[in-house]
């Protein structure tokens, strides 16, 4: 009778290549969030506009009298404008605790004691937030474009506005990158998800309020680059080949966005450490 060793044995199966551990973090985070009913409700609400627009596309394609509902480039630009509030809610819900909760429970030390680099850890956390943000921006926008072609049984709109595909992708990537990096950086600065959420919402609306006051007082929108939201909107107009809505130069807005992403990356580099060295 063959005797089997019942004692502890090391894992001898195949291992993932180094550099792919971020996928494990991202997948686990995504699975966790998909299990929360409240979050699913937020996601469903975020897709509300998609369904309304889809109905409008259907009606305009099938009932000539309702041609006023037909899509245009502006339609897709407006779609992103309205989605902004859901981008905020998803960012706050998903992002605020991503690193803060790990710092609070000292899980960061455990993560970084595994064969996992700091970059992979950040990439995993970014992956969770970016996934859900893309689900409320890029995915519904592209799906709408596809629906338009299907409902009208014609590729005319798509071919006439082929630039919309890269425009949607570029705009969504910019919006998602800015939201993900800044939120993650704020999350790394605190041990409280609630505090992080307030900081993020505060920064967003504070800069918008400053710009609003200065705009009202100076009767000019030259200072639009002061507002996080206005920067995204300004660049968005350029990406969608529409006249910019503010007087400030769009490269200034692009510079602010790039600087914020860079600053956030720097903060993450400084803050995501297993052990904090106080000098």
């Amino acid at each position: 009778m063959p005797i089997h060793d019942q004692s502890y044995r090391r894992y001898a199966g195949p291992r993932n290549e180094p550099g792919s551990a971020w996928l494990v973090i991202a997948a686990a985070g995504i699975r966790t969030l998909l299990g929360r009913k409240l979050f699913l409700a937020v996601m469903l609400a975020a897709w509300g506009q998609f369904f309304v627009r889809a109905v409008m596309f259907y009606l305009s394609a099938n009932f000539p009298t309702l041609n006023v509902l037909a899509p245009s480039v502006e339609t897709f630009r407006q779609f992103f404008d309205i989605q902004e509030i859901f981008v905020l809610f998803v960012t706050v819900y998903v992002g605020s605790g991503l690193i803060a909760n790990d710092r609070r429970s000292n899980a960061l030390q455990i993560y970084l004691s595994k064969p996992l680099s700091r970059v992979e850890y950040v990439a995993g956390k970014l992956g969770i937030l970016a996934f859900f943000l893309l689900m409320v921006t890029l995915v519904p926008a592209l799906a709408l474009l596809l629906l338009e072609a299907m409902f009208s049984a014609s590729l005319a709109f798509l071919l006439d506005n082929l630039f919309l595909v890269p425009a949607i992708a570029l705009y969504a990537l910019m919006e998602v990158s800015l939201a993900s990096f800044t939120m993650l950086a704020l999350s790394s600065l605190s041990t409280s998800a609630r505090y992080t959420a307030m900081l993020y919402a505060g920064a967003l609306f504070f800069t918008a309020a400053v710009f609003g006051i200065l705009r009202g007082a100076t009767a000019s929108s030259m200072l639009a680059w002061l507002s996080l939201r206005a920067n995204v909107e300004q660049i968005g107009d350029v990406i969608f080949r529409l006249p910019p809505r503010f007087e400030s130069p769009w490269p200034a807005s692009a510079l602010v966005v790039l600087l914020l992403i860079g600053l956030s990356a720097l903060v993450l580099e400084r803050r995501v450490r297993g052990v904090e060295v106080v000098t």
Partner: protein
Amino acid sequence: MSSPHEPPPSPSRPDGPSFLGSVARIYDLSFGQMLWSRRTVFMVLVVGGPVAVALILRLLVSMDLFDAGGEIDGRPVNIDGPVIFGLMIWGFYLSFSVPLLGVFYGTSLIADEVEDRTITYLFTRPVPRGAVLVGKYLAYLVCAGLLVLPSVVLVFFLVVPLLGGSVGAGFPDLLKDLALLAVGLAVYGALFALVGALFKRPLLTGLVFIFGWEPVVIVVPGYMKRFTVSYYLQGLVPHAMPEDGGVTSLVLRVLQANEILPSATVGLVGLAVIVIGGLALAVRLVERREYVLEQ
């Protein structure tokens, strides 16, 4: 170890402090905690922003870089100090700082203690749980008022004299604005204290309310807008804002023409109902709720 514990003279008092006495003691305990917490940094940023903007405006005016005439949405407007001050009260304090502070502090009154796992120490003392909530609410109100109101006064003196504005003439409006903001802090604080007691994720609910629900519903015709705080606050605004033909008055006239604004009486009654009803419900919820702390 020292000598055996000598109990202090009659330390246990079966009569104990009344509800109001308990509120006062919780207030004493919480005020310092709240004022010197990390949240104060956030709060200073929120109320320091308008002061910084006011300083920038003064600088622009002193360098003659400021154009007092301009257009908004195609309408010519004459801008002076009181108009800018009105804009800041409306655009900064009422629409942003006050609701945000209300959300942040109101939802945290109990949640902070639960998150820090210190709620046990308060709930195992002979004070009603409701007194804990009300005491903390009062601490928030004083704390927020002490930071917001001086900021408004500072902005008033920095901005109102600009471009020919008169501090003396605008002073009564300042007092009304201060009262309005104090009411705003009280109302939003009470509402979000209720949200904090009611929901598991009160912060998201609060943000959805102030940045999702209020801005949208307030312009929807019908009764929906009555389910916002800003609707009732707007009823008090014309009495506190400069009515000089400036931008704010223009906006308010449009709102009034569309019957969006309630009367001052309706506004006051509505706000009182929110404060009293919100706090009463929050107290009831806190009294009945169990708080299971994470280990």
